[in-house]
């Protein structure tokens, strides 16, 4: 179920604008996913009587946690850049 490597539709004078639209929409979607999760965490913590905000500010990541976050961050970047990266991906199949 991978995406096809065929050329995507473009509507603006420059393909770059269409690619930017993709980036903005992907960013907006992930921003919403995150916003909903944070909202849920805050509400869940409230319902449990937990002082969550202060704990979040003082928390320090372990190396393992840092690596996990780096992986998640890379997925975000891959999604955000999926339109501008397509040509490159076609030239080097299997590398991305």
């Amino acid at each position, binding site marked *: 179920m991978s995406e096809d490597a065929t050329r995507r539709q473009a509507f603006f004078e420059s393909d770059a604008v269409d690619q930017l*639209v993709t980036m903005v929409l992907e960013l907006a979607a992930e921003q919403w996913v995150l916003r*909903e999760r944070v909202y849920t965490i805050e509400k869940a913590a409230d319902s449990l009587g937990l002082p969550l905000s202060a704990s979040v500010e003082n928390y320090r990541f372990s190396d393992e946690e840092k690596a996990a976050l780096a992986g998640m961050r890379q997925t975000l970047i891959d999604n955000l850049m999926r339109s501008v990266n397509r040509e490159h991906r076609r030239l080097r199949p299997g590398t991305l």
Partner: protein
Amino acid sequence: MPLELNHELKIPLDRDSSARQDFVSQLRGFILNDMAASMRNAYEESVAPAFEREHGRAPATQDEVHDAMRGNTQFKFYSSIRYNAQEMVWRSVIPCVERALPGIEATIERLSGSSGGSLHLDPNLTIPENVADLPVHLMPGGYAPSASPAAGAVYDNGLAVFSAGFMGKNLDDIGLSMSNYVKFRHPDFKPRKILDCGATVGHNAAAWAATFPDAEVHAIDVSASAVTYGHGRAESLGLRVHFKQMDATSLDYPDESFDVVFTSMFLHELAVRDIEKFMAEAHRVLRPGGMLINMELPPNQELQPYDQFYLDWDSYYNMEPYYRTYRDQDPVALLSKAGFSSADYFQFVVPQYSYMDPSDFVAAIDAPQRIDGQTGRLSASLQWFGFGAWKRP
């Protein structure tokens, strides 16, 4: 908001996937309502007047509208965002289906036959080019990549996101609206056998089975994936539907064996030559006194140039290459060529059965009907268009 599917193949969603699907669905609602209205305003207030100043007349065809709109910023943003949202529909469900696939396969296996339906696959069937070679609706991999129910699951879950809540409580509103139109408009007509062609996952065939519980309902599609998934879906709903992998242009049923042949959003997926083949087959398998009934977008001849342009957007930008060629046809001529009499032709519009009191639905189908730019459009004032013909006794 996306529809929450109500059957046992439904995928349990993690919170992030759920939030992502909610976002995409709501974005589509915004595009189809707010952005579409803004684009129409841009046409009426700016694009059409400019065309008239240059040509001394209004745009007369959808091609003239389309050409005039190409340079308009509102059209560019509408199109670019809608195109992206279409991709995002599939992107929001595919990872969920991949994770859930073993469970979906096990559920289909467990439920198979529990409600009296059946599944018949034809491994020797040649998948037509319009399905095999095209990622229709920009769905990655297309509808028939393999016999795995994955593509069917992607379609069912994707349609739930895509439809933004406009297509009924189980994506069955088209089937419910069409079957109840038949039931209430023709109370003396009691179909014993019903065939849904190009049925994909059988979401509308299931509705026919619910409306006519005593009828034997068959659902065919060229996609093994779709009918396998559809079989499990219908069984989980307690509805008896017989699914077969079959090409609607070459039906493996005897002459005069059905009372109803039904399609939904199917004809526009076919080249005109295949529509003609299908309709001839429908005429052949119908019993005298039976009906062919198709739910489709209204034909272009019924619409103003701007509305033609608006509906045919999919033909140019949503991997629907036959969409416009179908909508340019005269439905009466298509049916006549297949053997139906033009005197037995009918067409109608219906409101959405799922969202209203049945008595209001009956009143609506008896009221004077009007086809306009809203007909068939996924929007807040949606109504479905249907047409067909009776086979003369």
